[in-house]
């Protein structure tokens, strides 16, 4: 090691890179320096808990080991060989336990509690404290998701540091001082932020607990299953805690390149949708009284009948949330078995981006990030938001180009913005060209699935620079995997049948899509594969129950282009899609295994170079970059061009819909997440609001083509003029142009 330093810990010499933390150095030597407050992901060590006291030769006082870095020639003694260090740690634990209630038998953390573990190893067996412990009201609802027990809190400040220094939401704070210091939110407001749940995992005691998991299980009766979150295209690595066949909680499984060990609240708290009341548990068939349960055999017969009857006029609406194996299975049945090659899929991703592939963590190390598009990154791929914050803390410049950007652009102007950046005379473009650590992000609809982004990255010379990358944030978790697997199933051209004989709707995102509903209007029959009853009522002729991502075995490809393995964390209440797809396929002489692992093998032979499942491992690696292949040019020139709003005076505004992070069929079904859902509001630029005499808080009527909704107005100073921004779920049937007047 060229810039290595030699440190002696407990008489063991170890060489580490200069600047390595002492805790990590000791770990490398197989020696434990116990910690509570130390967590390098939260920023510099704070030295608050004093659990890590060690003796350092040449220094008179005991030192907080977590605040030290390895220096050449340093001689350190931990509790293992130093009586003073042992006494110091013993003392720290005695202090910590003075006010701790020691209610381990009724505490959720009991059995997986660092305080319990370290007390057992380093602490006193009894206390010398003879006065009353501090008591607090408890538990305090920090939010509907998180309960706070202030008596258990040891004030390590991990949670407040996460809030202020990682998620930067500044909502969780410490108030009062001394022994009466306590964790709180401002004015007792709920902790309402996209990443709040991470504080539960960070808490080294049972002070912050999940309201969903509280009293649900004990550590010795649970099983953790490693899988990947299927709710957005980031593909954060998670572990699902299960007990008696039910998911009880979801935690991070730290993939340092993807999520850095953080999870958004959607990924963490949405699992109760698996047990939603309106979950479809058996096949349903349209009868005289609406949808009626039907036996599986009859359902498959009916499906076969519908498929045969519509042969040649079948269209498949894919969700982009299927596993690669389900998408391939659908392809085998519909394309290979029936020659039905027509499919629709919202927002796929371009393979041309493989030339600029890099781990998401590359963003955290960037010096310049340009984000184009009208959507907030956190709404599309929350993990990316945390990497952006990390980059900015590290001094990076973050430029956003969009309807709410630091560089304002008209709605849908992302492709134009990229074209401008590639102009050799463009200032920001020049800096992107010369930087070795620049990242482009597309955060919005359109753009040919990242094709325009790939073209721009190529133009800007990102090809040979490992620190430069381009990321397209699609709206669904696995659009690329799905489209490639669908494509791999068979060859054949799309026919765009008219009229549509049968529309096969795969998954909830497709079932909930207004575009797919519009297609259904033209279809003679509809088969819907969906998890929730309400998504199928009124339009499906046959409903086949879907499984959730947490119940699926298979693979998925995240927005980086990383193939990851999903595990079945619990047995689904309904059969696996592949089970009945294989049976149906057999009726059309197409061979499909009911086992995801076998399907993957076949798929892998075709498109993943024969990669085996076990090669993916639990922390999948990102393949090397591919050579740049120019994507197909934009099919309809001008289709993606910005639609500039005309007439900035009182008149119509262009409706900018967005899908907030806390929305969607799963979130809607989780009681604890309701407070996180978007306000019923419409955002207007200050100019547009001013001209209409509208201020924040006013109730306004939003009209278009005969429909109207009432929403609360919010003046958004970042928003460009001529635009009204409304969350999808509150935009209802509004058309692209809306009138906004004070109600």
């Amino acid at each position, binding site marked *: 090691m060229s810039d290595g330093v030699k440190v002696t810990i407990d008489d063991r010499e170890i060489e580490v890179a200069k600047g390595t933390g002492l805790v990590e150095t000791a770990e490398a030597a197989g020696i434990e320096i116990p910690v509570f407050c130390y967590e390098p992901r939260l920023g*510099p*060590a*704070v*030295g*608050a*808990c*004093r*659990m890590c*006291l060690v003796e350092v030769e040449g220094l008179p*006082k*005991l030192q*907080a080991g977590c*605040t030290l870095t390895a220096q050449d020639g340093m001689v350190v003694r931990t509790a293992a060989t130093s009586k003073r260090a042992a*006494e*110091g740690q013993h*003392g*720290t634990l*005695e*202090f*910590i336990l*003075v*006010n701790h209630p020691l209610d381990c038998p009724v505490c959720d953390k009991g059995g997986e509690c660092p305080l319990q573990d370290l007390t057992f190893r380093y602490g006193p067996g009894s206390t*010398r*404290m*003879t*006065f009353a412990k*501090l*008591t*607090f*009201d*408890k*538990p*305090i*609802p920090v939010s*509907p998701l998180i*309960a706070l027990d*202030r008596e258990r809190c*040891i*004030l390590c*400040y991990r949670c407040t540091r996460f809030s202020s220094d990682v998620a930067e939401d500044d909502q969780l*704070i*410490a108030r*009062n*001082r*001394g*022994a*009466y*210091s*306590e964790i709180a939110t401002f004015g007792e407001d709920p902790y309402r932020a996209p990443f709040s749940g991470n504080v539960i995992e960070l808490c080294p005691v049972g002070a912050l607990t999940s*309201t969903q998991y*509280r*009293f649900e299980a004990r550590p010795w009766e649970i099983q953790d299953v490693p899988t990947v979150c299927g709710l957005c295209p980031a593909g954060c690595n998670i572990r699902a805690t299960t007990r008696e066949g039910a998911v009880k909680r979801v935690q991070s499984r730290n993939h340092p390149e993807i999520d850095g060990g953080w999870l958004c609240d959607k990924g963490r708290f949405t699992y109760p949708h698996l047990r939603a009341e309106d979950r479809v548990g058996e096949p349903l068939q349209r009868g005289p009284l609406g949808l009626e349960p039907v036996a599986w055999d009859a359902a498959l017969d009916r499906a076969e009948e519908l498929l045969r009857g519509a042969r040649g006029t079948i269209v498949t609406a894919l969700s982009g949330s299927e596993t690669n194996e389900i998408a391939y299975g659908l392809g085998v049945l519909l394309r290979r078995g029936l020659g039905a090659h027509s499919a629709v899929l919202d927002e796929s991703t371009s393979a041309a981006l493989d030339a600029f592939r890099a781990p998401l963590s590359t963003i955290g190390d960037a010096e310049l990030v340009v984000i184009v598009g009208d959507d907030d990154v956190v709404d599309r791929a929350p993990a990316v938001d945390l990497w952006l914050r990390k980059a900015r803390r590290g001094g990076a410049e973050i430029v956003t180009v969009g309807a709410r950007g630091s560089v304002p652009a008209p709605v849908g102007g992302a492709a134009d913005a990229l074209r401008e950046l590639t102009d050799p005379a463009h200032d920001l473009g020049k800096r992107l060209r010369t930087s070795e650590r620049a990242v482009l992000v597309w955060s919005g609809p359109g753009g040919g699935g990242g094709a325009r982004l790939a073209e721009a990255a190529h133009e800007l010379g990102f090809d040979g620079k490992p620190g430069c990358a381009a990321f397209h944030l699609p709206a669904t978790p696995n659009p690329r995997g799905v489209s490639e697997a669908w494509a791999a199933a068979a060859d054949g051209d799309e026919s765009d049948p008219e009229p549509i004989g049968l529309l096969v709707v795969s998954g909830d995102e497709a079932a909930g899509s207004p575009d797919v509903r519009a297609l259904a209007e033209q279809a003679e029959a509809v088969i819907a594969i969906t998890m929730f009853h309400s998504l199928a009522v009124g339009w499906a002729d046959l409903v086949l129950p879907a499984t959730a991502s947490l119940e699926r075995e298979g693979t998925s490809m995240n927005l980086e282009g990383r193939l990851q393995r999903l595990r079945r964390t619990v047995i689904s209440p309904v059969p696996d899609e592949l089970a009945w797809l294989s049976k149906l396929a057999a009726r059309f002489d197409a061979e499909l295994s009911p086992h995801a692992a076998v399907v993957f093998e076949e798929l892998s032979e075709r498109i993943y170079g024969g990669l085996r499942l076990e090669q993916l491992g639990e922390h999948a690696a990102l393949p090397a970059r591919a050579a740049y292949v120019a994507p197909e040019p934009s099919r309809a020139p001008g289709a993606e061009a910005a639609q500039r709003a005309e007439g900035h005076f009182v008149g119509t505004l262009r409706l900018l819909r967005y899908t907030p992070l806390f929305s969607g069929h799963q979130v809607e079904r989780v009681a*604890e997440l309701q407070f996180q859902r978007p306000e019923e509001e419409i955002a207007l630029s200050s100019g547009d609001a001013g001209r209409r005499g509208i201020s924040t808080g006013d109730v306004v009527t939003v009209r278009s083509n005969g429909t109207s909704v009432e929403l609360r107005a919010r003046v958004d100073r970042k928003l460009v003029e001529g635009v009204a921004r409304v969350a999808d779920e509150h935009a209802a049937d509004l058309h692209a142009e809306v009138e906004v007047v004070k109600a």
Partner: protein
Amino acid sequence: MSSAPEVVFAGTDGGAITDLAAYEAVGGLTALRRAREMTPDQIVAELDASSLRGRGGAFFPTGRKWSFVPKPDQNPRPHYLVVNADESEPGTFKDREIMLRVPFRFLEGCLIAARGIESQHVFVYIRGEYEHEWEILVSALEQLREAKLLGGVTIVLHRGAGAYICGEETALLESLEGRRGQPRTKPPFPAIAGLYASPTAVNNVESITTVTPIIEMGGAEYAKLGVEDSTGTRVFSLSGNVVRPGNYELPHGYPLRDLIHEVGGGIADGRTLKAVIPGGSSTPILTASEAEKVTLDFDSLSKAGSAIGSAAVIVLDDRCCMVQLGVRVSQFYEHESCGKCTPCRVGTRWLTHILQKIESGRGTHADLDLLLDVGDRINGTCLCPLGDSDAIAVASYVAKFREEFLQHIEEASCPFHGASSLDGIVAPTDVHEAHVGPHEIHRPLEVVA
């Protein structure tokens, strides 16, 4: 009264100079003019020659502290001078008198010091309760600004919000940046990464005010005052059971006995001297006989097992119960502990509880051992000196007056039988008892929703 030369309060004739013209009439601003003709290195060299050491309590050489601040070409970030005017150590009230009586000498020192470390930005973090002092400074600063004497330097007079911990330099910086006032780990030291992670010198009000006469008279001349290792004068805050409490500027090396008996007029009400806390509540106590022998300088007090600290001399007469004093002092540290590190947050409260138990006659011999042991576990394991201060002070009371602690235990009551008095020493015990704190649970646990 002493006839020693006044340096900090020179020209005030016992009063205050709050008018710029009056200040110039007694020679004010000559140092600033001289400093502006000197290079920063020359200013630091004068400070080195003066052997001025920090008046806040740590007694660190001021010139050396400044020399740790990198040159602008070594670190291009802005450089800051931060003046610690958060004077809160029990018994210490010198900085307020300096700000009240010689605000211009203080601000002149700020401008000279800023030049010494090549800074354009000065922040004065002034104790929240010092409202009048703040107003005086605001007025003086306004006069300097109108007279166009600031030379491009901005001086911000920032009021604290009432926390002793913010007198600890890194907690002060946190608070100044708008965060919770809690100490940072060191390194990095403020000279390297202080305010807004930029090079910062943090100095006490009296140190900065003394910079002015040092430049005026020259460092070597200043060093002739006082004694070796403790040069110059010091503003001693004399309080407690003396006839004439107050601030007295005296040269270092002045006999403590003379400060009490001559300058201070002796013990009040014909009582006898029992003990002296020589440098603020955090310094170890001296018995009457020890106090007779020491002089007020770093060496003499260190040899006697105490410290000069903030030069706050607290005189205790024979009515004072040492256990009660311990309770009161420990309560102060408990109340002011910021809550960041475990030993201080929990330990100071524990010390108070044990002391209260002994004071009320419920203590045992084991409690006395526990008191010292808990103190030992606090001392040296904390993030900053606050917790140590409590442990050290209390340990010194036990060491010097063990008999009195044993009497409480063996007689199961306070030997002073209510005749004990902390009058004039520290605020009454009950002042801080009504702290805002948690209360007992009166309702059953609820599962949140």
